[in-house]
């Protein structure tokens, strides 16, 4: 039996301890507890007690028994197969050589060192080859590189702690750390990128930045913050450029099987897209199937929602097949189709509703709008500035910032088209109500200082002052217009139509075959009128229509001016013209100078006989006539003719039987009386005048029995006249 002395027992105990340590070390290594720092070498023949710290894997060493000569990591080779374990660490041997420690496993495991020159562009630093930019390759496998430092291939490398797999033709940048200047392809977190330039990967969140890369067949440029989420969705936190189009802040980017993009949100050319489906880029134009919302410009000058079938070019001009809503500064288009925007105008083939400022249009076709302007080929209805237009066609509206209508051109064609116009003319508080009959149409042009209505068919309109309908317009067919000029009172310009003023006492009608003017106030009606050829002024007394009269301009007169005086406060008007007249409703007389016709209703037994007025007075060439009425405008007391002028013919028809005519005869004015011998006692009308007077002949007396002047008596038809024969 062996016995050990104390020293011998100590040696035995030491050996046991070393064996236990060796066993424990093997256990730890095999268990991977030191995986990061200890590389178990095998299956190259090295014993399990050989390992390297720092080297991750060296399966493709030139010789499997010499492991691990990884010059891109600073490692320590250790072996413990012998009684005395040995350890050697990498170190730099000058600037370009690394003294690489490795395990020689050919026979007995041993640690050795070998001097290896770093690749071109690399220097030995911190016991390993480090790129001159400071970028470290880190643990790698299967790396092959050229003498210039270009990495031809690597199963993986670890660039600044980010493991890049399947690297090919990778060039590290000298410009900055962590920058891969170019690579044919590389894989980051199972995603392969081809043809990368200036490629960077954030080691923490793996966001990728690259000047360019090919990603799933798409060549992207200026890639900033690319991050793969959930294997499919991608964020480009700072965007990218694709086919010349700048994408910014791209989130939830997904490439579909058909090659289109779905994007949760992004900015393209400063336009913010949300919920993009099937987007493609063609010719710098963004084309998509659908976008949930699209905000244009940094200031979001226009917002489109629920857009389908869209295309937006680099100038933000666009076309949408449809859009649930498009809102611009001051305007809103709802449920629009065939929407376009170019040259700063927004267009739509159709819109369910259009809101421009305070204007609203419904069921609008072919609209065009910008700012407070809009135009439509047609609209079912338009509300603007208190107006309602129905069945509008080819119309334009412009309002100011307060929603006041400043210009409009309206064509309306509707049944019972009624709208109210708050008269926007400054200084006027009138408003205008237009009533169009069935199938009538009109064009309304309105600008700051005038508004115009062009009526394209026979129709009538009424303009109201708020309660009583007091001004109406009746068109005479094509090119019939009402044009109101700003001023107080407003000046109405009438072409081919009739303007009627009406209050509880009387109505006045201004008839213009050509173009005429009349100023109108709601209190007194017509002020002064400029009648064109064939134009007429019609006065109608609502209390007694026998008082009605008409002043008519004959065809041979280009224009005739008539002024009215209706209040005592209104000063009397002087006649200082060749073709003008004054109707003084206060003093109840009418002065008429020049060629003009005055008409009255024919009467029988003091009742109106026919609704067609007949000529009472015809100034044929520059006479000055004064009609002085009795107490009202019923019977004319006297018509006085100033015949001092050189050539002043005129005709007065006291009734349908008599005609008194002034005519020049041999240089002298003569008064002729003519009777209509076809008139009988039954058909004769009442006389409307009591005296006919001129400054040459004097006064002629007229009554129902006849006309009397000195030795001349004209008798109206009567059986009593036969007494003349019986004498």
């Amino acid at each position, binding site marked *: 039996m062996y016995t050990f002395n104390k020293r011998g027992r100590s040696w035995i105990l030491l050996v046991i301890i070393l064996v236990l340590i060796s066993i424990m070390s093997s256990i730890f290594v095999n268990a991977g507890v030191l995986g990061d720092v200890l590389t178990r070498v095998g299956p190259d023949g090295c014993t399990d007690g050989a390992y390297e710290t720092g080297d991750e894997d060296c399966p493709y060493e030139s010789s499997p028994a010499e492991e691990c000569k990884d010059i891109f990591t600073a490692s320590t080779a250790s072996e413990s197969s012998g009684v005395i374990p040995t350890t050697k660490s990498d170190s730099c041997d000058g600037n370009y050589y690394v003294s690489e420690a490795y395990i020689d496993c050919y026979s007995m495991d041993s640690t050795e060192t070998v001097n290896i020159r770093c690749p071109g562009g690399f220097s030995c630093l911190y016991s390993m080859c480090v790129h001159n930019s400071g970028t470290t390759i880190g643990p790698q496998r299967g790396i092959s590189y050229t003498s210039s430092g270009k990495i031809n291939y690597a199963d993986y490398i670890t660039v600044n702690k980010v493991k890049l797999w399947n690297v090919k033709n990778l060039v590290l940048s000298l410009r900055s750390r962590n920058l891969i200047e170019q690579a044919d392809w590389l894989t980051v977190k199972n995603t392969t990128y081809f043809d990368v330039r200036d490629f960077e990967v954030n080691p923490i969140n793996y966001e990728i930045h690259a000047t360019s890369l090919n990603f799933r067949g798409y060549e992207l440029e200026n890639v900033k913050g690319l991050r793969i989420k959930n294997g499919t969705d991608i964020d480009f936190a700072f965007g990218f450029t694709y086919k010349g189009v700048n994408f910014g802040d791209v989130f939830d980017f997904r490439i579909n099987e058909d090659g289109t993009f779905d994007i949760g949100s992004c900015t393209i050319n400063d336009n913010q897209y949300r919920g993009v489906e099937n987007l493609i880029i063609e010719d710098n134009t963004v084309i998509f199937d659908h976008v949930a919302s699209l905000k244009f410009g940094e200031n979001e000058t226009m917002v489109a929602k629920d857009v389908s079938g869209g295309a937006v070019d680099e100038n933000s001009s666009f076309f949408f097949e449809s859009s649930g809503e498009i809102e611009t500064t001051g305007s809103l288009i709802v449920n629009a189709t065939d929407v376009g925007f170019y040259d700063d105008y927004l267009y739509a083939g159709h819109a369910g509703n259009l809101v421009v400022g305070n204007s609203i249009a419904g069921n609008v076709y072919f609209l065009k709008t910008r700012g407070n302007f809009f135009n439509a080929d047609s609209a079912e209805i338009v509300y603007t500035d208190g107006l309602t237009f129905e069945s509008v066609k080819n119309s334009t509206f412009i309002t100011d910032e307060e929603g006041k209508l400043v210009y409009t051109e309206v064509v309306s064609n509707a049944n019972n088209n009624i709208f109210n116009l708050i008269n926007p003319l400054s200084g006027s508080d009138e408003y205008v109500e237009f009533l169009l009959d069935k199938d009538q149409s009109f064009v309304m042009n309105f600008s700051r200082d005038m508004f115009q209505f062009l009526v394209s068919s026979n129709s009538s309109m009424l303009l109201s002052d708020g309660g009583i309908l007091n001004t109406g317009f009746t068109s005479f067919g094509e090119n019939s217009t009402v044009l109101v000029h700003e001023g107080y009172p407003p000046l109405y310009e009438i072409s081919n139509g009739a303007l009627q003023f009406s209050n509880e006492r009387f109505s006045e009608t201004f008839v213009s075959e050509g173009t005429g003017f009349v100023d109108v106030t709601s209190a007194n009606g017509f002020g002064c009128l400029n009648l064109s050829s064939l134009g007429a002024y019609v006065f109608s007394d609502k209390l007694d229509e026998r008082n009605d009269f008409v002043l008519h301009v004959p065809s041979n007169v280009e224009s005739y001016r008539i002024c009215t005086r209706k209040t005592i406060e209104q000063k009397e008007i002087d006649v200082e013209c060749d073709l003008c007249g004054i109707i003084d409703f206060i003093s109840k007389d009418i002065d008429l100078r020049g060629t003009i016709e005055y008409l009255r209703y024919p009467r029988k037994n003091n009742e109106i006989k026919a609704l067609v007025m007949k000529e009472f007075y015809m100034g044929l060439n520059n006479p000055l006539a004064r009609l002085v009425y009795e107490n009202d405008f019923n019977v004319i007391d006297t018509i006085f003719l100033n015949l001092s002028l050189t050539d002043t013919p005129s005709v007065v028809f006291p009734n349908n039987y008599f005609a008194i005519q002034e005519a020049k005869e041999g240089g002298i004015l003569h008064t002729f009386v003519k009777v209509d011998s076809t008139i009988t006692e039954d058909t004769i009308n009442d006389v409307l005048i009591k005296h006919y007077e001129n400054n040459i002949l004097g006064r002629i007396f007229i009554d129902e029995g006849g006309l009397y002047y000195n030795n*001349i008596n004209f008798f109206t038809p009567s059986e009593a006249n036969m007494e003349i024969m019986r004498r």
Partner: protein
Amino acid sequence: MPRKNIWDNPFFMNLKKGQITIFIVLGMVLTISFLLLYFLSSTESAPTVKNLNFDSASIESYVIECLSSASSESLILLGKQGGYIHPSIYLELEGYNVAYLLFEGNNKLPGEAEVISQLSVYIKERLSACVTSLAEESKWESEIGEKQVNVVLGSGSVGITLTMPVRLKNGDQEIILDTFAVRKEADLPSMFNSISEIISSVSTHDGGIDMMMLSGMPYEFEIFTAKGETFISVTDISSNVDGKPYQFIVLLDT
């Protein structure tokens, strides 16, 4: 203000019923008397042969009265019928065949010779009965020769001369008369001139009657229409034919 009844006048209210009746009867008598006098004085009654005395003055007066009556009748008829006794283009009105003096634009006013001729013939015709009556109804032996009427339209009057040999015998008394003359105060030449001017003016002015022209003429004009035509009654108030101002009717085809 309510209108007052005439019987409310105090004059009437103070009268008794009988007095009022007397006034009414008196008024009627006066009116009838006035009318009788008027008609008796205005009609030139034909002379009666039976009351004639066989003396030259009476016989001459009788013939002159016949001539005067016929002349007045002729002149009046001529005036009423627009210068024609037997117009060819005329319009009947109140028993007169009024001639168109303006017809289709033409002045149809007869000339002086034609007027004279018409008057002469018509006076001669109208005298026949009167003269025949003298021969047949008188108890005297009579011998009346051929009648010849001569009319002169003078300034201010119309002179009518009848040349008719008349021999009457009553026993041994014999009256021989040959020429008779009357004068009617009617200035036909002036009137015709004026009317001619009027017609011309009316024609020129499309039926218009010149007030200045007419007012400058010494006539009274009454213009009236009947049967679709225009009539101008021209009355020379200074004339006297058969006790009345001479009236000339102008019918215009207007």
